[in-house]
């Protein structure tokens, strides 16, 4: 199993007092698998429908770029879930 982190930003910060979620997925897991795992975690919240809907409009990213659903996730990776943006 690979352990990795997903940082929370924007509206996802309301999901948890922690700024990071710790996930564990089998070796060979991709961003698509991480998305399913995140949906299950968010679904356990009383506001699960809100966060799952937000997840559908969000992308996963590392510090340099947004990621493809088919991108593999390596052990120890530090990813982020990015909801729709609104700077300025």
């Amino acid at each position, binding site marked *: 199993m690979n352990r990795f982190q997903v940082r929370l930003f924007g*509206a996802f910060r309301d999901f948890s007092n922690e700024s990071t979620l710790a996930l564990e997925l089998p070796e060979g897991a991709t961003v698509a698998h991480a998305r399913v795992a995140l949906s299950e975690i968010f679904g356990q919240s009383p506001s699960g429908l809100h966060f799952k809907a937000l997840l559908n409009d969000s*992308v996963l*990213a590392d510090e340099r770029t*947004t990621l493809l659903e088919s991108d593999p996730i390596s052990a120890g990776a530090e990813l982020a879930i990015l909801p729709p*943006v*609104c700077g*300025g």
Partner: protein
Amino acid sequence: MATPDFPRIEVRVSHESIDVPDVLKKATDRGWGAEILFLGHVRDINHGKTVVGVSYDAFVPHAEKTLREICVEAAEKFGESLGYELGMIVHHRLGRLAVGEASVAITVGSRHRETAYEASRYIIEELKERAAIWKKEHYSDGDSEWLKGHALCSHTRHRHSRGSEAQGPAV
């Protein structure tokens, strides 16, 4: 920080207050006849609600990289075709800001005003759609709300397709 290949580009996403004289000073050159400063401020009313402050959140390394890419695009799109260089400074605030505080500063220096206006407008519009920055409005009744925005796309999809509409900027 400055981008090595484009030394006249500087982007910063931080909690530091925006130093307008410093921003202006960095985007000047003897060969440039125009300098445009755009300042975005926290507005007191948004969608009929009285705003008392806005909290800005960002994935800083991702946002700064995107802002540098936007500046490079502006330089190529508006400057290179005319054979001259642009100077671009983009600073964006983080943390809680009060009404009237500057949330973003964009300075563009250029030989001529048309290019400076075009590049400045391009940078702020692209920033709003692509930079990993979020804002939460705080209202006079004690409520607060994360604003909806523009959905980002993974790098195989068309960059400007959107999954949701912007609720409207507080700038």
